[in-house]
């Protein structure tokens, strides 16, 4: 049974935090307005939202965020070197990553993480076979890339959302 006032507590919290960021949390009045928005917007948009997965392990989410931040930095260095280095050494490849998760929202998160990490772009999520199509700038060993995506990102995401 869902709470009437807060149908989506996390969405409400998110809206409130983003509102606080945008307005720089400048005054109490703005914060109150943010609170009102956090209550009203989820109510109004409720019909649009598919049933979201539950966030069961917030701490694991924080850990994944840290891993993700580190990976962005290291992958940036790597891709920066590749871009200014000799291009013929690159081996771009399409890689198909078979997924174990079965939730569209979590698949979207995974695809976003893969795309934001330099060197890989998620191109397509095949939702009938649950395969993530990834294009990699330099993947001499596609097998290793598949394992990396599944170990580093998919497994934590499945733990976090229990799916």
């Amino acid at each position, binding site marked *: 049974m869902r709470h009437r006032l807060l149908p989506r507590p996390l969405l409400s919290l998110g809206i409130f935090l*983003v509102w*606080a*960021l*945008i307005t*720089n*949390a*400048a005054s109490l009045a703005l914060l109150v307005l943010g609170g009102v928005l956090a209550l009203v917007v989820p109510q109004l948009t409720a019909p649009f939202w598919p049933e979201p997965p539950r966030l069961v392990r917030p701490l694991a989410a924080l850990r994944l965020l840290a891993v993700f931040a580190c990976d*962005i*930095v290291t992958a*940036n260095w790597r*891709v*920066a070197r590749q*871009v*200014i280095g*000799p*291009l*013929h050494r*690159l*081996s*771009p*490849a*399409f*890689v*198909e990553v078979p997924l174990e998760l079965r939730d569209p929202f979590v698949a979207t998160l995974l*695809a*976003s993480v*893969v*795309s*934001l*990490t*330099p*060197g*890989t*772009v*998620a*191109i*397509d999520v*095949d939702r009938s076979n649950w*395969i993530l*199509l990834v*294009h990699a*700038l330099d993947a001499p060993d*596609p097998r290793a890339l598949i394992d990396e995506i599944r170990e580093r990102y998919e497994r934590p995401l499945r733990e976090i959302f229990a799916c």
Partner: protein
Amino acid sequence: MSPPKETVVAALIVLGALFVFLGSVGLARLPDFLTRLHGPTKATTIGVGAILLASAIFFSGSESTAVSLHELAILLFLFITAPITAHLLAKAALHRQVRRDDLTDGGTPTADDADAAERQVAQPSSPRGPDGGRERANDEAGQQDR
């Protein structure tokens, strides 16, 4: 503004500008559409991230604002929207079957042998081959049309 703060802000701006520049270099140098797609992802993550962080530090503790947090919101929205852009561009490329490599011919006036060799080696290769992915993406697009 205190000297240490100035140093940090300056370093972050230079770092950010460097990565945005490298992203552009990637866009210009890489041989085909899909590899070029990788250039801007760097620019949006570290490049813009560092510049926004510099901005947050610069405006924090100055004049009226105690803490400047606008920048985090910008970063948040960039991180949400950037993958969608890349995703749609890549899908459009697969759907239209953009020819690989040929795209750069107009942009490389001195296409000497070395360049040509580079482009050949840089062809995408995967266990299923690039056409496997291309077919599948088209199948999916076909399903959506129905």
